[in-house]
C-alpha cells in the first residue's frame, strides 16, 4: 500500500467548499460566542442573584460536559421540548452557546481586571454607568482578554469538526466521506489535520498581530 495524496486531491473542489463551510461556521459561531459571552459576563456582573445563579449553572454545565453530548442533546433532544432545528442551525446554536460560555468567563475576569481607579476617574467626570461600561470597561477589557480570547477562538475551529456527526457538510464530514469512498483513509485524515492546523495557525497569527497592535493601549503602571 502506498500513500496516495493525488487520489484525495482529485476531490479538491469538494474539499474547497467544505473548507469554506468550516471557516464560515467558525466565523459565525465566533461572532455569536463573543456576543453571548459579553451578554452573560455583563449580566453576571450587574444582575440579581437569581439571574446570576441561572447563568452560572448554564456556564458550569456547558463547561462541564463534552461538546459532542451537548450537540446530540440539542439536535436529538430538542424536538422533545418543541425545539426542532435543521442540522446547520442546530450546529451553529450549539457551537455558539459552547463558545459563548467559555468567552463569558474570560470576559468576566477581564472586566474585573480593569483597575478600579479607571472607573472612579470616569465617575468623577460624570460618566453614567452605561457610558462607563461602553467607553471604559469593555474596550479596556477587550485588550486584556485578547490572548485568552484567541485561545478560545482557536479551540472553536477544532470544535467545528464535531458538527460532522449530525451531517453538517464541513471539512471533517466531507474529507472522511472521501476517505470512505476511496479507502484512502490515512491520506484523507492527514490532509484533514493539515487543513485544521493551517486554519488554527492563521487564527493564532491574527491574534498575535492584534495583540501587538493593541499593546499601545495597555497601561504602563
Amino acid at each position: 500500500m502506498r500513500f496516495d495524496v493525488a487520489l484525495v486531491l482529485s476531490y479538491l473542489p469538494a474539499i474547497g467548499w467544505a473548507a469554506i463551510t468550516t471557516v464560515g461556521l467558525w466565523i459565525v459561531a465566533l461572532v455569536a460566542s463573543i456576543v453571548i459571552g459579553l451578554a452573560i459576563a455583563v449580566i453576571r456582573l450587574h444582575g440579581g442573584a437569581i439571574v446570576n445563579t441561572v447563568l452560572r449553572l448554564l456556564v458550569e454545565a456547558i463547561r462541564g460536559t463534552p461538546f459532542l453530548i451537548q450537540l446530540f442533546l440539542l439536535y436529538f433532544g430538542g424536538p422533545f421540548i418543541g425545539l426542532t432545528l435543521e442540522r446547520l442551525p442546530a450546529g451553529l446554536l450549539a457551537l455558539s452557546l459552547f463558545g459563548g460560555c467559555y468567552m463569558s468567563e474570560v470576559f468576566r475576569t477581564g472586566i474585573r481586571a480593569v483597575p478600579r481607579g479607571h472607573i472612579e476617574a470616569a465617575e468623577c467626570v460624570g460618566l453614567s454607568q452605561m457610558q462607563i461600561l461602553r467607553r471604559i470597561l469593555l474596550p479596556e477589557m477587550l485588550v486584556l482578554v485578547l490572548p485568552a480570547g484567541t485561545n478560545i477562538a482557536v479551540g472553536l475551529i477544532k470544535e467545528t469538526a464535531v458538527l460532522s456527526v449530525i451531517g453538517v457538510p464541513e471539512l471533517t464530514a466531507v474529507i472522511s466521506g472521501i476517505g470512505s469512498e476511496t479507502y484512502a483513509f490515512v491520506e484523507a485524515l492527514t490532509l484533514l489535520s493539515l487543513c485544521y492546523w493551517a486554519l488554527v495557525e492563521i487564527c493564532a497569527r491574527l491574534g498575535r498581530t492584534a495583540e501587538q497592535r493593541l499593546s499601545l493601549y495597555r497601561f504602563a503602571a
Partner: protein
Amino acid sequence: MIIPAAQVDGLDKEFGTTRVLDRINLTIPAGQVTCLIGPSGSGKSTLLRCIAMLEEPSAGIISVGGRPLGFSLENGKRVKLPTAHNREVRGQIGMVFQQFNLWPHMTALGNVAEALKTVRRMPKAQANEIAGQKLDEVGLAHRRDYYPAQLSGGQQQRVAIARALALEPKLMLFDEPTSSLDPELTGEVLNVMRKLAEQGMSMIVVSHEIGFVASVASKVVFLDHGRVVLDGTPQEVFAKPRHPRLAQFLDTYLDREAVMLA
C-alpha cells in the same frame, strides 16, 4: 458672606467596625489652597474621597459651593439626595488621583475630551479644541496624540489634571498627586498646581510635599487617627512650639529627607 468652596460638617466614615473619619468639621475657603497632611492611615485620602463622592460617609453632611452633596439635612434627618442633583454638584469637582488613572486606550487628547463628548454632549471638533487648550495649559500640547503608555508619569499626571480641568470645575481635589512619581518628575506636576493656585482655583491637596504645602497652602489641616488635630495657616501649623503629634510626624518626614539626601 463668601460661600466656601466646600463645607464638611460632622463627617464620620466607618469601614466595618473601623472608624476612619471621626466627626470632621472643616471649611474649605474659596479661591485658596487647603492642604491635608498627616501620617498614613490618618484618613486624609478618605476625607478627600468622601468629598469626591467616591466613598459614602457614614454620617455628616458635605456641601460644595453651598449645595449639599450626597446627603442633606432636612428637619434634623439625613436624607439621600437624588442622583441628578448629585451629578450636577459633583460636576463642579475635579479629581486627580495618585495613580493618574488615565484610560489607556485613549490618547491624551481623547482622555481630556471624553467627558466633554459623552457627558456634556459637545460635538467632537469642539470637544477636541477645548481639550487641546487644556493640554496646552499643562504644557503638553505636543503630546496630544500620545497614549498614556507612551508618556512619563509626570506627563500622565498633567494629562489627568487637564482632564479634570476640561469640565471647568470650581473645586479641584488632589489625592497625593506626586506620590507615585520619581522625585525628578514631581516638579512639573507641582508647577502646574502652583499655576492653578495663582489663578485662584479652590483646591484641596493631600500631599507629603511639605515644601509645596508650606509655600502654596493658605490653610493646612493636620489629621491623625481620623480627627482634625490642627487647622490653620501654614505659619500657625508649622510654628514652634509644635503640637507634639505634628512634631513627631514632621520629624520622621525630615528623617526620610535626610536619608534621601545622604
